[in-house]
């Protein structure tokens, strides 16, 4: 087992004795991992991040970062961390140079180091042309890039990103994800998101939170394996009805459902290996002279795995209630 950079133990946060925002959450992030923190909106992701940063105190349980307990006074731990919030907000009257210099001072960096780092960062996030403009007029993309530069100002060992692609256009989103993947080669990264494809693309490990409760923590592979539903999903051009009639006669097909005019989800018998099932299905498509638009197994889709986890959690909650 590698060195644990973040570890939570029965982490709980209740606001005003009414709202349980985080409920007994346990997970660990190992050194060098890119940990995706998944959950629907309002699940408790940002509250968990604020607990990780010591901005709020847990009602119960604790957070350990770099092996030490995180508290609001742990400025020594935050010195080794970088944080990019969702839609970051900055002092509006400052310019990027002034703000990054200010952040450098907050991290107790010397003047020479501050100047060197802020010039390199402003250039690398593409804000050189706007470095003397007041932040007040910046677009969402520019604010995110400035936030990224601020998060990297202290050359942190641990980076925390809260919904880093929120509000970005497709090219901004792509470049942000590429940058996170690049940073992940040297640093430990904790990234929260509700955009599943982003997590699937860059993360090595994942934690899932729903209604404040941690419902999964492990590698992405483990998550997909634990929730596989043995469904082959096809999109076909041709006589789909005739194809479905043929499926009825196949013994390892447990059932099927059609999706619109050209989609078919085939449920495979557990005794049939998935690889063989996919091969047989494609043979059947070819034999019927149908044009295969797309084929996928839901086991390879993080969205399905995530939805399965949520459904499973909801049904457990329902059973507990009854």
């Amino acid at each position: 087992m590698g060195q644990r950079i973040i570890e939570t133990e029965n982490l709980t946060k209740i606001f005003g004795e009414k709202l349980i925002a985080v409920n007994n959450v346990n997970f660990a992030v190992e050194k060098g991992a890119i940990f995706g923190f998944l959950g629907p909106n309002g699940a408790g992701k940002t509250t968990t991040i604020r607990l990780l940063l010591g901005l709020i105190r847990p009602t119960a349980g604790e957070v350990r970062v770099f092996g030490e307990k995180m508290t609001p006074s742990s400025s020594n731990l935050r010195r080794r961390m970088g944080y990019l919030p969702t839609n970051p907000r900055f002092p509006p009257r400052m310019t990027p140079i002034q703000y990054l210099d200010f952040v450098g001072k907050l991290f107790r960096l010397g003047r020479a180091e501050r100047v060197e780092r802020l010039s390199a960062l402003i250039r690398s996030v593409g804000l050189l042309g706007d470095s003397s403009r007041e932040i007040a007029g910046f677009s969402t993309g520019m604010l995110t890039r400035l936030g990224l530069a601020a998060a990297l100002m202290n050359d942190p060992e641990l980076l925390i990103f809260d919904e880093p692609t929120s509000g970005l256009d497709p090219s901004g989103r792509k470049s942000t994800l590429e940058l996170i993947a690049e940073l992940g080669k040297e640093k430990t990264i904790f990234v929260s998101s509700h955009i599943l494809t982003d997590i699937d693309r860059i993360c090595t490990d994942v934690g899932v939170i729903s209604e404040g409760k941690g419902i999964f923590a492990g590698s992405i592979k483990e998550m997909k394996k634990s929730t596989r539903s043995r469904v082959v999903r096809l999109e076909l051009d041709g006589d789909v009805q005739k194809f479905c009639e043929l499926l009825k006669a196949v013994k390892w097909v447990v059932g099927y459902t059609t999706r619109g005019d050209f989609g078919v989800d085939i449920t495979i018998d557990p005794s049939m290996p998935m690889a063989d099932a996919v091969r047989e299905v494609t043979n059947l498509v070819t034999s019927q002279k149908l044009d295969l638009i797309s084929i996928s197994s839901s086991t390879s889709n993080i969205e399905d795995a995530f939805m399965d986890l949520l459904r499973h959690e909801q049904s457990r909650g329902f059973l507990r209630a009854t």
Partner: protein
Amino acid sequence: MNNRVGSSEQHRRGEALAPFWAIMQADLRSLFRSKITYGWLLAAFLLVLVTTLGSRLHGTTSSAVSSGLSDFIYIWSLVIIGLTASSVSSEAGELADSIMSKSVTRLDYVLGKFASRIAYTLICFFGVAAVLVGLALRLETSDYNSLGLFSAILVIALTMVMLTTMGVGLSVAMPSTVMAIVTLLVLWYAMTIFFPVIGLDLLSPGNLLSYVQDIIKGEWTWGNWETVIGFAAISIASTTLSSAYFYMKDI
């Protein structure tokens, strides 16, 4: 060797105070770049000029300085209330994102805010007071005592510090800027106008003004000491209690 140990100790202390200084400097810079400051100082200088020139035929130094200082209690206190009661609550949105998530302790932040707002109030106050005294000494009939004049200015400076600490303190404790401003307005004018009515005249800035002219002439009483001690105690209590509250609260 000892020198080297001393210098490394100094460096460590300087490094530990870096966030506090950074927050204080950034806040002061933003205050002195604000149009409110320019407007306030311009209006204050003009008012000093007009009132001092207007009273030059029949006025005395003590009455001119006393009248100029009373403007801080009744008029310019409004500006100080606005600027101090918004100091922390107006930053609520960016506070966690851009400051507290860095290597900053709660005390670095809140004490940096107290220090910057107190420094700002005092710089503006002493700037206007210097012009006031300069004009009064040249134009009015001299009836002042140097130590008394100095003491009167320091007592009003302390009153302004008290108002500032109350403002920043409420800004820490109140959930919104508007609520902090309204609460401070009510508190300040209650202290200034109503405290004498209910027998708390020693803690009333308005009541203090009735003695300022005597202080300028060199008359200092035990009652003045009580007022100074009372104002200093309120300032220390505001700073300590609100810092403790900020230390405990979720951001």
